[in-house]
């Protein structure tokens, strides 16, 4: 029984570690921020889940299992939030290779703006272009 549990745990751990390696490879090889994020978020969800399952099986005990479950749930909750923020800023600051995009639904619609649109962070006040030369 324990041998079988160890085999399952090591399989999960190996799969998670392999996903970490693929994330590193994708980070180095992919061309722009969005595709690097695509590679980098693989271990954030599947890899962390697999590693947590393996660690929970190996460690045993309900307190460890609950805390590892907390880590996994937190990863699942926060990965889309940070990915959304980073990709939005990346698109608007033109860190996207647009010649590699097949579909670009934001093209030409003023999504790479330079004016006040009401959703800037930092609570920036609206700027009047006339009163602030060069600002």
């Amino acid at each position, binding site marked *: 029984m324990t041998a079988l549990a160890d085999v399952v745990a*090591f399989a999960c*751990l*190996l799969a*998670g*570690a*392999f996903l*970490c*390696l*693929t*994330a*590193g*490879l994708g*980070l*180095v090889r992919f*061309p*722009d*921020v969005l595709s*690097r*994020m695509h590679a*980098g*978020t693989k*271990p*954030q969800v599947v*890899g*962390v889940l697999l590693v*947590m399952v*393996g*660690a929970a*099986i*190996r*460690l045993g*005990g309900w*307190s460890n299992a609950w*805390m*590892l479950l907390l*880590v996994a749930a937190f*990863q699942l909750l*926060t990965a889309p939030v*940070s990915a959304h*923020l*980073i990709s939005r*800023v*990346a698109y*608007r*600051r*033109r*860190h996207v*290779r647009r010649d590699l995009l097949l579909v670009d639904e934001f093209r030409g619609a003023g999504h*790479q703006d*330079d*004016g006040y649109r009401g959703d800037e*962070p*930092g609570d*920036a006040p609206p*700027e009047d*272009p*006339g009163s602030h*030369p*060069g*600002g």
Partner: protein
Amino acid sequence: MTVVAGALYALIGGGALLALVRLARGPSLLDRVVATDTLLVIISAGLAVHAALVRDPTLVPVLVVVALLAFVGSVSVARYVGGMLLRSRTEDGRDVGLPVAAEERESRS
């Protein structure tokens, strides 16, 4: 057993090293943010793997802290970069556009 442990540490160490390469090279700040995020996730996975290998449950709270720190760090830096959005207008109201991104410069040269 030791072969599996070595393979686990090698895979995670390789991933962390490649993320460090991107962290050092990345042309823009957002590349470094993505690389830091991935590096912290790989570090937490490595801690979990170590805890599982030596059966040491004292490392488990550290995992919670690292997961929290990764989220807070990447989100705060992304919002800070978003606050730096250029408002490049000349006096006659003509839009001079945003500066050329590092990726476009790389692909052109």
